[in-house]
């Protein structure tokens, strides 16, 4: 049977109660895995390279404080140990807690919450190169303060060489992983409470 990454990350196998529970939503289970495959086994890498995908995946899960980060760390370590090392140096200065950010001016302005607007430092920017550097900053935005998103943020990506299609893929990467890591967190808690 083909590997199911969420089962693997939670530590469930066929026959376990949680395995059977997930089978009751068979399309959700199957397509969560198909999503992973579409993003990480894609043969179409001209708009977003494998290194960019894996660096963004590690960055998303590590910033989120997810136990899935060790899995993506392993994939990135195989692809580019140097990129992983640079991200690990940068991580303590980038970790915070969210969601925070501003609303469009009006009645919700009282709920505006300040927080870190992270950018790569010079060392990381040199190591990652301009395309990946802006993608890492955009990832930080999507992870912690998605309501601060803007047309300007997308223009920054375009100016650094990302195509419209590449931005769609980048956005799906961070967004899908934000889903996957929460399914893993939620089902791991449920697993511990099953009779």
């Amino acid at each position, binding site marked *: 049977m083909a590997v199911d990454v969420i089962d693997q990350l939670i530590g469930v196998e066929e026959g376990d109660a949680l395995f059977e*529970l997930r089978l*009751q*939503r*068979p*399309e*959700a289970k*199957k*397509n*969560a895995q*198909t*999503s992973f495959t*579409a993003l990480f086994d*894609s043969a179409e890498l001209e708009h977003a390279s494998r290194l960019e995908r894996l660096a963004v995946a590690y960055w998303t899960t590590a*910033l*989120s*404080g*997810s136990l899935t980060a060790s899995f993506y760390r392993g994939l990135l370590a195989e692809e580019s140990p140097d990129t992983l090392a640079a991200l690990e140096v940068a991580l303590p200065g980038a970790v915070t*807690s*969210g*969601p925070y*950010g501003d*609303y*469009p*001016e*009006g*009645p*919700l302005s009282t*709920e505006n919450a300040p927080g870190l607007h992270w950018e790569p430092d010079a060392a990381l920017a040199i190591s990652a190169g301009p395309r990946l550097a802006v993608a890492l900053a955009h990832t930080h935005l*999507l992870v912690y303060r*998605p*309501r601060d*998103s803007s*047309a300007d*943020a*997308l*223009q920054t990506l*375009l*100016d650094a060489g990302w*195509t*419209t*299609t590449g*931005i*769609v*893929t980048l*956005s*799906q990467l*961070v*967004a*899908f992983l*934000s*889903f*996957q890591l*929460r*399914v893993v*967190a*939620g*089902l791991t*808690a*449920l697993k511990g*409470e099953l009779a």
Partner: protein
Amino acid sequence: MSEKVIRHAFEAPNAFTQAELGWEPWLEPLPLDELTERHYSGLVDKGRANSSYFRLLVRDPDILGARTRTDNDIFYNEKGGLPRAQRELSAAAASRTNGCIFCASVHSRFATHRSKRHDDVQRLLDEGPGGQQDDPQWRAVIDASVDLTRTPGDFDASNIRQLREAGLDDLAIADAIHGAAFFNWANRLMLSLGEPTPPTGS
């Protein structure tokens, strides 16, 4: 020379509402006449070709198709599990927490439609997830959604117990988890690729 984003002149809505909003992208959707069979497979439902949101996402068709099929099973599979109204509540609570005015409008409206409890849903929008909810299942589903949505997550065994003590079985609890988790996917796309337009008729 790099591409340019699309900038809009309208004033985007600045408050949570159950009214119908539109949404406009900041990036160019794929033109209708460039859609191939593979794109239609990614759109899943042919009618979605009329949506600028889905025609933007279909630029990467495989992940869009998998996203939509995941979404449909989490929210529309009615074989047991969490009542549909509460799946929508979970989506609305995540959207309220992340600050996605568009997603919150759609799913608060669906929650009201399914539950017929407009005022309870409106309180979630007006006062936020901490607002009073007297129904223990609603309280537990909202709390679970908020705790999963926070980064890093706050969701733990106490959420499972709260959901269970409110009368939810394991499948319903798994549905609540998936509903909140999925909106952490959807909110990030909707918030970052475009913005809502004012309610029709305002």
